[in-house]
């Protein structure tokens, strides 16, 4: 397949801190160094971009020596933590800013949707804004005219099309804006995480449209999102960035796996805190004879004031943060209010037949007093389920479709 985008040796340095009186002398120094043909003195001392640690210099490399090719017609998901350089990469690719060194070569037009509704003017009507926004994104007027009905139809805001967009709800605003961008006729479409505002129906519609763009029309799509679910669904290739470096490029599933793995490494199966919940541990036990997975959740707490009617709960999520189950003792008649006037103690939650599939899960712990929340610890524990009954059959379960497994089920002819 032909290469659509070729990135060579791409780096981008940013200056940290404030621009003020001090910067002019530094600018002069840099200018002087350039005049004499020397290397920029301030780029030499640049550091990798780790936002959590304090550095010594004012310059960080938001992207460092990136090299990769993107094939025409592929849908590429760009993943990484906040500050990994995803947005910087998209900004360079969409020519909003220029790299410090290196180059990007592109075939065909690029349309980028880094933000929804860029250039919408609140005073203008939806109709006027479709034309303005389309032109900003690089469409000719005739092209917009031809697609106008299609755009309005896709957005689903026909009734409001002659109303100023300042009267729109934020959802309608996003719908209209995405509709315009989705109808661009460019060889490459760049989409930053912009769909978060729309309702789920519209999000699905957008993802569908983007899938159609890449699979159906053979155009290249670059997509940034923190939602691993939609990335895995939409993309076939992935680029994993970490602190401005290219960690992995290749199949999207490998990238998502590598990303979620590095993310989950930070959570252990043991939690220690200085709030009300002092300690928590999770164990899984696979009982071969009954082929059941048992989960034990041990929580130690100590409170300065009396918890009158304690509620202790947990939530199990997958690594993309999709909740799978969330329960507490009030959901069970037998335990609804069995913990009264608690100040401290050790509690054990036993799930004797956990219907979870093989894989890694995150657990949130919740502590409350009647209806009041006392403490919620997100991502407190990591649960690693390695053995499962269903693995004993010859047919594997599709993990894309299934989150849970049902033990007691039967197929009979009646």
């Amino acid at each position: 397949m032909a290469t659509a985008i070729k990135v060579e040796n791409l780096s981008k340095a940013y200056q940290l801190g404030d621009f003020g009186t001090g910067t002019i002398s530094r600018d002069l120094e840099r200018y002087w160094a350039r005049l004499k043909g020397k290397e920029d003195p301030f780029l030499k001392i640049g550091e990798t971009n780790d936002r959590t640690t304090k550095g010594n210099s004012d310059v960080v490399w938001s992207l460092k020596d990136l090299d990769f090719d993107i094939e025409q017609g592929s849908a590429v998901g760009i993943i990484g933590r906040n500050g990994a350089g995803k947005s910087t990469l998209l900004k360079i690719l969409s020519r909003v800013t220029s790299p410090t060194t290196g180059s990007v070569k592109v075939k065909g037009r690029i349309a980028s949707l880094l933000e929804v509704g860029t250039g919408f003017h609140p005073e203008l009507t939806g109709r006027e804004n479709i034309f303005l926004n389309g032109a900003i994104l690089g469409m000719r007027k005739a092209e917009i005219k031809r697609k106008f009905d299609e755009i309005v139809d896709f957005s689903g805001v026909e009734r409001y099309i002659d109303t100023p967009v300042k009267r729109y709800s934020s959802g309608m605003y996003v719908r209209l804006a995405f509709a315009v961008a989705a109808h661009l006729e460019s060889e490459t479409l760049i989409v930053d995480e912009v769909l978060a505002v729309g309702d789920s129906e519209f999000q699905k519609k957008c993802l569908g449209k983007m899938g159609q763009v890449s699979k159906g029309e053979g155009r290249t799509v670059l997509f940034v999102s923190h939602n691993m679910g939609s990335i895995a669904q939409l993309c076939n290739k992935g680029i994993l960035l970490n602190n401005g470096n290219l960690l992995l490029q290749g199949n999207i599933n490998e990238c998502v796996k590598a990303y979620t793995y590095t993310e989950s490494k930070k959570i252990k199966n043991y939690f220690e805190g200085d709030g009300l919940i002092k300690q928590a541990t999770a164990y899984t036990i696979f009982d071969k004879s009954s082929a059941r997975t048992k989960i034990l959740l041990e929580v130690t707490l100590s409170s300065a004031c009396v918890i009158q009617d304690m509620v202790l709960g947990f939530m199990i999520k997958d690594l993309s943060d999709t909740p799978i189950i969330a329960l507490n003792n009030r959901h069970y008649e037998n335990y609804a209010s069995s913990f009264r006037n608690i100040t401290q103690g050790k509690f054990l939650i036993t799930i004797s037949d956990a219907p979870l599939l093989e894989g890694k899960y995150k657990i949130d712990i919740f502590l409350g007093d009647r209806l009041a929340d006392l403490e919620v610890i997100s991502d407190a524990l990591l649960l690693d389920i390695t053995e499962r009954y269903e693995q004993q059959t010859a047919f594997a379960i599709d993990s894309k479709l299934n989150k849970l497994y049902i033990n007691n089920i039967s197929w009979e002819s009646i």
Partner: protein
Amino acid sequence: MNTLTTQENWDIEITAKNNLLDLKLRDVWQYRDLLLLLVRRDFVSFYKQTILGPIWFFVQPAITILFYTLVFGNLAGIPVDGLPKPLFYLAGTIVWNYFAECLTKTSTVFKDNSALLGKVYFPRLIMPLSIVLSNLVKFGVQFLLFIILYITYLLKGSAIAPNIFLLLLPLLIVMIAALGLGMGMIISAITTKYRDLAFIVSFGVPLFMYTTTVIFPLSVAELKYPAYSWLVKFNPITAIIETFRYGFLGKGSFSWDLIGYSFISTVIILITGTIIFNRVEKSFVDTV
């Protein structure tokens, strides 16, 4: 001939530096629809939710010349070459306003539009060009006011006589626009990083007006301050205003030297401005 390496054709190449003289005018032409839509946006959004609508374009110059006539004409008694005072002031004011609006708006173009320019690419030159064109529309409306007043005085039999230099009008308009655009772009490039200059512009532009012949004719300046009148002539706007008045009203100072000087400085300023702008636009997003 058989070469092993295939030369691939790339449509866009993104690198750290671009050619100083590559102004990407072809790109600008590609985006001409955007230019017109931006002008339309500015024009339409100006009078949305107002009752008088575009009439507001008339109000500002009308009130201004009323005050100029009262204060400078009558109270201070600055002679106006024997011309009708409102007409004299209006001629200077609309030319000056067009220049000043182009200059101030262009000088903050990166700052004002950083939200838009930081999210989507289009030839950056479109933005200042749209400012110049939007203000041209405004100038056109104010020019209409001037023509109405002009005809009124002509019918009343005032001592005004249009002459052949009226034909220079299109050139004059282009020169004002180019001057405002060029100076604005130079300032805009500097203000992306250091905002200091923006302050100078905000109080400097109204003061700068007094070094042009908006409220006094060049002849008066030469008569009263012969030693300093070069300062007024030095300002390229002076020649434009004087020629404008001379063409319409038949009085004032016109010389090919003066307008020639003004033309050359305009070209130099415009080229310098465009090159500087072109250099800064690539990465202003990081510093603005």
